[in-house]
Each structure stands twice: as structure tokens, then as C-alpha cells.
């Protein structure tokens, strides 16, 4: 009576490849595939395709030009979940999240030690997540004096106009050269804002 199976996800365009991939495994092999499998396959499709650049390797470089990945998977029957945060040097973030779900009692592994878990336990391969495009994006940002910039508060040098390294402002620091950056340049210009 219900129009099942069903897959639904954020965004359109290149993201529909993930919708279709997840739906087709549920539709074609329902006896061999779980909803959890479908979500993993769908998200992995977007990771491989890089979708619009906000998923997978080679996108959203940080201040140091590094791409790191976040992923979560959750079972609606058990309410168990597995996740990785700030995963470095491993492309299949949703696959590592699935390992956390399937083979640990934890909910979230982070950073280099999540990478170690992926390599040692899951046999994942470490590789550079940067691409020519992501490095160019980062270099363009640096060439634009690191603008826009997520730093905020009283820091030196002024993150609203200069690249770092940054440090908290101290009373002994000079007040010359507009060194105080109290705002957040991302908040002041929505057109420049990034997002998850």
C-alpha cells in the first residue's frame, strides 16, 4: 500500500546519481540489501563523483589546503550510529562510518586516529585528498589575503585583511594597523559564505 522502497536526499543535479544508486539496490535486490546498505551506496556514489564539490575528495580545502571528510550512518531500527569526523587521507568516509557502526560500540571517531582505524581494521588505502582544483581554490584564497575568513574575535594580525598565522590579541600588542578583527567576514557577505 505504501510507495516503497524510497530514497530521498538533499540537493538535485549531480546528487540524483546517488538517489538512483541507492534506490536501485533496494529495488533490484531487496532480499540481499538493507536500508543501511542503500544509504552507504548512495553516499559513496556522491563521494566518488564529488557531486557539486561539497562531498568527497578534492573539495572544501581548509586554511592549510587540506580536504578532510565527515560522515554519519544511522540505523532506524536500532538507533545505532557510526560516524567519522575530520577524516584525513581516506576517500570512502561513509564506508569508514559504516565500519564504526558495524564493528564498534562507539558513535564517532575523529581525525588521524579515525584514519588509523580505517587502515588497520578496514584495509582502506591512505591517499592525498587534494586535487589540482582544490589546491588552486586554496591558493586563490591565499592570494586574496585569505578572504573571506572564519576567524573571529580579537586576534592578530587582522583576519579581516591578512593571512595568518594568527594569535589571540594581548593588551601588550600594538593597536596600530587595524589589527583587531571583531567580526566574521562570512557573516557580512552571504554571497561569499561556504556551507556544509
Amino acid at each position, binding site marked *: 500500500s505504501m510507495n516503497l*522502497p*524510497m530514497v*530521498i*536526499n*538533499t540537493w538535485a543535479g549531480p546528487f540524483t546519481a546517488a538517489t538512483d544508486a541507492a534506490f536501485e539496490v533496494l529495488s533490484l535486490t531487496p532480499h540481499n540489501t538493507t*536500508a543501511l546498505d542503500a544509504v552507504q551506496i548512495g*553516499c559513496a556514489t556522491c563521494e566518488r563523483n564529488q557531486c557539486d564539490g561539497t562531498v568527497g575528495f578534492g573539495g572544501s580545502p581548509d586554511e592549510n589546503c587540506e580536504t578532510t571528510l565527515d560522515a554519519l550512518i544511522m540505523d532506524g531500527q536500532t538507533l545505532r550510529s557510526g560516524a567519522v569526523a575530520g577524516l584525513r587521507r581516506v576517500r570512502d568516509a561513509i564506508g569508514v562510518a559504516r565500519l564504526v557502526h558495524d564493528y564498534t560500540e562507539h558513535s564517532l571517531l575523529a581525525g588521524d586516529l579515525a584514519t588509523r582505524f580505517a587502515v588497520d581494521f578496514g584495509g582502506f588505502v591512505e591517499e592525498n585528498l587534494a586535487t589540482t582544483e582544490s589546491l588552486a581554490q586554496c591558493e586563490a584564497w591565499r592570494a586574496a589575503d585569505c578572504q573571506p575568513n572564519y576567524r573571529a574575535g580579537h586576534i592578530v594580525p587582522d583576519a579581516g585583511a591578512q593571512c595568518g598565522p594568527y594569535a589571540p590579541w594581548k593588551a601588550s600588542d600594538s593597536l596600530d594597523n587595524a589589527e583587531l578583527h571583531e567580526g566574521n567576514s562570512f557573516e557580512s557577505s552571504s554571497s561569499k559564505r561556504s556551507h556544509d
Partner: protein
Amino acid sequence: TISMVAIHSDGTMAAGTSSNGATHKVPGRVGDGPIVGSGSYVDSDIGGCGATGDGDIMMRFLPCYQAVENMRRGLSPQEAADDAVSRMIKRYPMAMTGIVVVDNKGQHAGAGSGWTFTYAFRSGDMKEAVTVTVPAL
């Protein structure tokens, strides 16, 4: 960010999220993607939710947990989504947010703010995914 909810033909559900976060973030920053209830949330007894947007803001509101709990209290998917987004933009009017909400019967809706949010779905005997455009609240 991709955030996805799947419903098996047997009624079981799952959700997941994958993201490379915000561009030019401070190294070490983690967004809302891997946070349960923020990036996504699912309870097969009720429904599921996926989210995208300003992760630093959204993770403070657990919008997907909020949306699923809204449905548990009897709200429709659209009412649940609108309420979850409204709670965020009440405190952060400029926030860019988007959530997609589906109940365990496949009824779905989306809500967003700060941009034109879209989502995609495919169900039953549909031959390909269909896109839905969501006006900003």
C-alpha cells in the same frame, strides 16, 4: 553535503550524511554532518531527516532530531520541517539551511532558509529521481 534517508520495502529505515565541510575552515573544524540529529536522524517507528547548510549553526539546533520528534508528536513532515528550520532562523536570520523530512510511510517535505534548497527522491515504480524545489522560509 549529501544527506540521505532510505526506506526498505519491509519498512526498515536508515539515514546517512557525507560532507567535506566548509571551504577555508580553520583546520580541525568539524561540521554538522557527523553529528547524530544534526546531519541526519532516523527512527523507523516515525521517519527520518537529512540536513545541509551552515553546519556551525545547524549543529547547535539538532534540526533533524527536532524534525523527527515533531513528527512523533503528530506534526506532518511539512510542519515538522518548517518548525525545525524556523527555530534556527529565529536566532540566526541569515542562516543558510535545508532539511528534507520523510515519515515512515514515504510522505515527504523540505524546508530551508537563505537560499533555494532542493532535494531529490525516488520511490515505488518511479523510473528516475525527481527533484523538488523548496522556497526559502
